[in-house]
């Protein structure tokens, strides 16, 4: 945590997505997050690295866990953290995204952490502000800190990412978590498979460098990591599958399907889980195989690393958007 030197290993003003990050940059971020992980387990969880810095969480979409995770990250680094959600702000009064951002920008924050229901909205906003922006999830596009914490979880359990067979299962078409993970895992040399009914597989996804399976037992064969996505009913306009019970029967993770993966395969889920929908309750609670709680813990560490890198970058680099 070299507080003052400009960061040549990570020369970006914003963190808008994983696409475009190099393997070295990702590794650098994960290494830094590792040190914060150890720190977070220590007795004194307060630093002054961000003393005097203003961090604003600007969430146009509900999220308690991600926002709390960022808030904790900012406060542990000693920053002043403000939470703004759509309900309590002038957005409801009809102000546009850009106007809101520019209004907040006029208060000179150091970092804006933004979540928005539309893909691309965070990038649009980042072009209008002078501070750094972290994308906490934009529509179905990217959720970079989630992919980073997933990678950290895997790396700590398996020693690395290279060559691992990772199955991402569920509502791929609407998932920003899936997209960010696909970019990251491919960049780090893992082999990604997608498992879902055909209606939940986006068109042309094979060209992102993944294998697609419509049969879960087949897709899980020999996998090291099983990443379950939540079925996002709030994003579904129209018919993607007929019923929860049919979805769970063919695509829910239970022991029978899990049997085709490696015996020590790790089970992950970005949360919140729908028990009995994408994952069987027993499997979710199988603490020997599930890394779901660790993922949450990694989340704070990863977000602290991102805040450190972006706040330290600001005066030095004019490299523009990531």
């Amino acid at each position: 945590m070299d507080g003052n030197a400009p960061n040549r290993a990570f020369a970006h003003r914003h963190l808008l997505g994983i696409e475009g990050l190099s393997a070295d940059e990702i590794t650098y971020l994960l290494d830094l997050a590792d040190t914060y992980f150890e720190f977070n387990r220590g007795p004194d969880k307060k630093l002054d690295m961000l003393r005097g810095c203003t961090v604003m969480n600007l969430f146009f979409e509900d999220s308690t866990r991600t926002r709390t995770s960022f808030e904790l990250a900012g406060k542990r680094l000693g920053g002043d953290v403000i939470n703004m959600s759509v309900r309590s702000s002038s957005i409801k009064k009809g102000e546009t995204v850009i106007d809101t951002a520019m209004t907040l920008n006029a208060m000179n924050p150091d970092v804006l952490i933004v979540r928005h229901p539309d893909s691309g909205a965070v990038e649009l906003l980042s072009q209008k502000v002078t501070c750094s922006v972290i994308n906490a999830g934009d529509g179905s596009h990217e959720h970079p800190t989630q992919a980073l914490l997933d990678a950290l979880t895997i790396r700590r359990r398996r020693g690395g990412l290279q060559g691992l067979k990772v199955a991402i299962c569920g509502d791929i078409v609407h998932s920003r978590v899936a997209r960010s993970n696909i970019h990251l895992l491919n960049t780090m040399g893992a082999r990604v498979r997608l498992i879902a009914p055909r209606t939940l597989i986006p068109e042309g996804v094979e060209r992102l460098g993944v294998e697609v399976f419509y049969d879960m037992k087949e897709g899980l064969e020999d996998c090291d990591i099983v990443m379950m996505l939540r079925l996002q009913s709030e994003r579904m306009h129209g018919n993607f599958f007929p019923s929860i019970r049919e979805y769970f029967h063919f695509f829910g993770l239970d022991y029978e399907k899990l049997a085709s993966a490696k015996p020590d395969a790790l089970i992950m889920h970005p949360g919140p889980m729908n028990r009995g929908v994408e994952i069987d309750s027993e499997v979710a609670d199988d603490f020997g195989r599930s890394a779901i709680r660790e993922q949450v813990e990694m989340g704070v560490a990863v977000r602290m690393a991102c805040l450190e890198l972006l706040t330290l970058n600001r005066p030095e680099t004019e490299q523009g958007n990531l």
Partner: protein
Amino acid sequence: MAGKPSESLGRVAYVNARLVDPASGLDAPGALLTEGEVIADFGAGLFSEGVPEGIKVVDCGGHCLIPGLVDIRVQLREPGEEHKGTLASGGRAATAGGITTMVCLPNTVPVIDDMSVVEFIARRARLLGLTKVYCYGAVTKGLEGRALAEMGMLAEAGAVAFTDGVKAVGDAQVMRRALSYAGTYRLLIVQHPEESSLAEDGAMNAGETATRLGLQGIPRAAEIIIVERDIRLVEMTGGRIHFAHVSTAEAIEAVARAKARGLNVTCDTAPPYFALNETAVGDYRTFAKLSPPLRAEADRQAVVDGLKNGTIDAIASDHAPHDEDAKRLPFAQAACGGIGLETLLPVSLEFYQNGQMSLTDVLRLLTCGPADVLGLSAGRLEKGLPADLTLFDPDRAWKVVADDLLSKSKNSPFDGRPVQGRVLRTVVDGRAVYGREG
């Protein structure tokens, strides 16, 4: 004469037969041996030295012994509309028509969009011991065209393919998702190709006859538009589709082009569309009110050509029984549809009788052709397969008299038609389920 399951079947030799098996191209005099429920042996030389002791002998009198017919589009009306027809009455009509396997549409009451209905029909058919009955599952819940039905689980329960029955899945996005979702499990969707807003309130084919009769017309484009649209959707989704009862030249051409491009597209037609045209409506004959409607002569000829050149994969009866009350109404109010189980074979044989097709080619459209569309192991003669057989005399002449048919409902568009081709014996799983003397 329905079979008695308790009787031991033993071995039965069908001798002095003309064996025709379109799947293998066999057409030769010979014999066939069944053992219990399966075909044990068959061929030109079988039993040429006589039949050994202990084998029951059936003398086929030189008539045609073929695989039992496979009818992939039938409305049996049970559960829910038993006044029009039942699994029992439909089964009896089917066996009289030489049909040993039928596939019934899901527009029953309740709709076949739940596994329980699939099991009900399977169990009832098994108990009746007549024709084998499979069913289609619904594409959309309640056949409402909006929410997808549980196609994966319905398939596991035994549904062989999926259709919304006598309606098209009209919304393009719903059809696209249906094709895509069904493709997850490699399931087939069968579409009744009719653009519903164009066909709304129509009573017969749009054209001169409809104009003279003062009846609202259903444009040919209603069929063509859906066929062309859904072919595009198949291309988009990689799904599989089968178009039911094609009746227009352009629809058939579109299917031919799609096949040439390697798309997973098949189609069938029903006897009214190659044996009748819209003039059969005559003076408001409601037995000629069908869906799709009977077309003009040029389309009828195109259907004939489509059957001859192989574009059309199967002939299915599209058996749609209606009670008298539903048909004895002003034309516009009458129900659509005609019965067809007992006329499927003789009307199709007209191609053979007037020299347009060989016997094998006609029978292919009624046996392995439809079976292959649905991936059923039926409609062929093969050692070890169930002994589902039909014995018929292709030359015997008779006249279709609707009231004499075994079907519970009598709404036949072929009423009064002289035909040739009489089923003499129908065998399902080695048991005779229908027989006719003389």
